[in-house]
């Protein structure tokens, strides 16, 4: 099991790095999907099959499709790659990378010092999760509904195209 974990972890990390360094948005998205799938595998082997499936269904299957959809709608393709390439020069990313590295070192230090007593892994299946979700977290679920409503209303309004303005003689009757 550990071997699978490490493989998935390496895949996830490499894919994620690829996401950040690609020039082409679609390629990056593909790598992101791979990364998500790898993370999903990790979920699965850490005893969380339900969210492993959800990760694929919702994240890879819906959210990222939205991304692709947007990319297609804007018809962005390889032509944006040239502008991007000059931004990928070392001086653009070296400082944040070093800073992140420092942060990482700190985190690693913290992790190493953390002696969480290892607990035997237990599969927490959908039933348990659902009982938790619709038991104690019922209100949170309802609130999530409101969150999605906010997202929908916001996206609807902002994404709408501007209404063409006609001369008043050309307006249809229902508008006038």
């Amino acid at each position, binding site marked *: 099991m550990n071997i699978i974990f490490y493989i998935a972890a390496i895949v996830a990390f490499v894919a994620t790095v690829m996401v950040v360094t690609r020039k082409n948005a679609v390629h990056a998205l593909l790598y992101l999907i791979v990364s998500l799938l790898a993370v999903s595998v990790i979920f699965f082997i850490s005893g969380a099959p339900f969210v492993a499936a959800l990760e694929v269904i919702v994240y890879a299957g819906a959210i990222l499709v939205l*991304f692709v959809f947007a990319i297609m709608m804007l018809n962005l393709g390889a032509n944006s790659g040239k502008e991007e390439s000059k931004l990928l020069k070392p001086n653009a990313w070296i400082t944040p990378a070093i800073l992140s590295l420092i942060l990482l070192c700190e985190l690693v230090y913290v992790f190493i010092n953390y002696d969480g007593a290892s607990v035997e892994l237990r599969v927490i299946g959908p039933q348990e999760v659902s009982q938790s979700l619709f038991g104690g977290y019922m209100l949170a679920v309802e609130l999530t509904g409101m969150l999605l409503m906010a997202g929908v209303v916001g996206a609807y309004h902002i994404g709408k195209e501007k209404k063409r303005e006609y001369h008043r003689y050309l307006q249809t009757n229902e508008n006038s």
Partner: protein
Amino acid sequence: MSELPLEAGLLLAALLFLTGLVGVITRRNILFMLMSIEIMFNAAGLAFVLAGAHNGQADGQVMLIFILAMAAAEVAVGLALIIQMHRKYNSVDTDVLSELRD
């Protein structure tokens, strides 16, 4: 089920999170920034699930489900904004966003 290499899992989460952070900071393409945000969210979710597994509770997974919902809502609005931006500036480069300066 065997034991989970928790430290390694956390390390992975941290790595993903920081990679996302680097992406948000360095990339100028708004799509990439949004994707990097997604990576960060995902890393946080990973950490939660690992923590839940570590503690033997379902709460970590519940949190991940909520994180998914959040990411969805955020992406919806974000992409709508990006589309408007593309309509307005015909570009997805954040450098074109320069109206607001001191």
